[in-house]
């Protein structure tokens, strides 16, 4: 069917787009970190290092070469997975990321589950019961949801739960791969804290786009031709209304990854976010650089995935080629 050819073509186009964006992102992050104040040799060797030691290390690390040379070296190493070594611990950055990734991932996935699990049904409900009491309540709740800072929500949750110590852990995180129940409980509070804003966003967006769809001509036509109401709602309206929300959800993965920096700090979760913050205060540039590059790559990949999903669901995109 020509449909799958169109889809492949579209995916190909997206990949082509991704390459310059990733290159640009890596370059931007490299420049930023490079311009940050602090002498790498000094940071590694500490305050007691002598001038000769510093000079020798600088030579070894090629710190005297021009920026683009250093950048190229970094990029070619990164392409094969070598993100350098931490200035402070000498550990391989790639390893450090891999060690901590499961925790951040668990947090992100947990938040996504919370957001979709609450946001989707509520958004649908609100659009079906427009302007009734339930709708008003959900709209106000959603408004509050996007107005609460996630770290404060986390703190408030800790405050509430701390009164009844022991029910749910308020610090640290167990991976579900080690212990399902403990993992679930330890992720509960942080996931709610991080996921609330996303839940609210989904509720609002879904309600809006579903209401938009309901007012469109084809709904009236389907009605005029006797198609059953539930069929119109769930097959026609929901599918079309979900599309813009899907794109937004994909974009918000970035929010989840960024928000993890704060939430991991609040809840003491040993994830990538906390590692990054640590690195900032300790001027551990390779770590910062590595994380930023990693996150950007993941983000771009997710974007391509989401766009492909969108094109799969909406034939106008893969055939017409409207760019965002």
């Amino acid at each position, binding site marked *: 069917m020509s449909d799958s050819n169109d889809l492949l073509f579209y995916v190909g186009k997206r990949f082509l787009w991704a390459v310059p964006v990733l290159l640009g992102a890596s370059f931007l992050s490299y420049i930023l970190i490079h311009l940050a104040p602090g002498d790498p040799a000094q940071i590694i060797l500490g305050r007691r290092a002598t001038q000769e030691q510093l000079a020798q290390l600088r030579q070894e690390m090629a710190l005297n070469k021009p920026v683009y040379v250093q950048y190229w070296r970094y990029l070619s190493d990164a392409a094969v997975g070598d993100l350098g070594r931490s200035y402070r611990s000498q550990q391989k950055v790639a390893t450090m990321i891999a060690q901590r990734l499961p925790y951040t991932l668990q947090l992100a996935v947990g938040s996504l589950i919370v957001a979709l699990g609450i946001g989707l049904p509520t958004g649908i409900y609100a659009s079906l019961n427009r302007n009734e009491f339930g709708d008003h309540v959900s709209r106000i709740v959603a408004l509050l949801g996007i107005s609460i800072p996630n770290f404060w929500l986390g703190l408030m949750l800790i405050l509430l739960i701390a009164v009844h110590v022991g029910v749910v852990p308020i610090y640290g995180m167990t991976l579900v791969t080690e212990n399902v129940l403990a993992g679930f409980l330890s992720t509960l509070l942080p996931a709610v804290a991080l996921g609330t804003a996303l839940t609210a966003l989904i509720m609002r967006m879904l309600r809006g786009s579903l209401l938009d769809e309901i007012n469109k001509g084809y709904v009236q036509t389907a009605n005029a031709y006797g198609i059953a109401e539930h069929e119109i709602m769930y097959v026609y309206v929901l599918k079309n209304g979900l599309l813009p929300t899907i794109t937004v959800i994909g974009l918000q993965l970035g929010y989840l990854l960024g928000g993890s920096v704060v939430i991991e700090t609040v809840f003491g979760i040993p994830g990538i976010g906390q590692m990054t913050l640590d690195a900032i205060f300790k001027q551990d540039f390779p770590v910062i650089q590595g994380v930023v590059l990693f*996150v950007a790559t993941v983000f771009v990949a997710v974007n391509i995935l989401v766009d492909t999903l969108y094109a799969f669901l909406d034939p106008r995109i893969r055939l017409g080629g409207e760019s965002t």
Partner: protein
Amino acid sequence: MSTVTESTDPDSDRDAHTERDYSTARERVLSQVRQSPLAMIGASIAVFLLLLTVVTLVDRHLLNRTLITTLLHDPYATHPENRLQAPTLVHPFGTDEQGRDILVRVIYGAKTSVIVGVLSVTFASIVGVAIGSVSAYYGRIVDMAGMRLMDVLLSFPAILLAIALMATLGRGLENIILALGVVYVPTFARVTRSEMLSQKEQEYADAARVVGYPDRNIILKELLPNCLTPIIVQATFSIALAIIAEAALSFLGLGVSPPTPTWGMMLSKGKPYITDAWWYMLFPGLAIMVTVLGFNLLGDSLRDALDPQEQGEGRI
């Protein structure tokens, strides 16, 4: 579902006016805002905070804090003997670990949040609108280049990008404003580009070109004024986001340096005492939430009044 009436000429809704009718748009907004109680609340909160910012700025820099000290307490004076007191009539929000009154520190904290919010969004909107307009108007390569650049910025999560920028720029108020400004540029670029692309197709744009108007004038005087509504709505929402972002940065320790109290910093300072001093956690956070809520309410009502087609909400 049915139209109200067919009495209007089918073409009149699609008329391209040279300029949107400003007086009626303003009137429409004002009347809508006046009618909706939520909108009134949002507008009042925003206005109140702006006033508070101005007053506290004057008090801090010109009056050397005399106003607030006389009315309530001195936000900087430490009284170790009063540390961590629960809320009382004298200290309605309690005191912190150095015995300072939390209410006045919350009041003083407002100005940082508002200034960062408003200024960073101002920066982001000017730069973003410029990039978006140029991309939309000249199209093709310029558009591709502009939007790829925006995509590069967008490939970083907002907080992460802000943190990276601040690592380079260092701490301080101006740097926070610049960092957050850069983070929100792509949002404005996209909104402007999207709106301008559709305005560009309207006949009045062709008319302007036909009479030989220079490009710069067409963009600035003809197209841009008609793109303003979604930009204004977006700006309001972005201010709300920026305020949360500034609080997060302060909370992480990357904000403005002490002794200036900021809401995020107060939360971070208070975290060790979370179980002993619940008021330390509650009030600064509540202040952030109410402020952000105010701007979000305002944004919602502006959008309902001005922009029937709901646009995206920007990056969290």
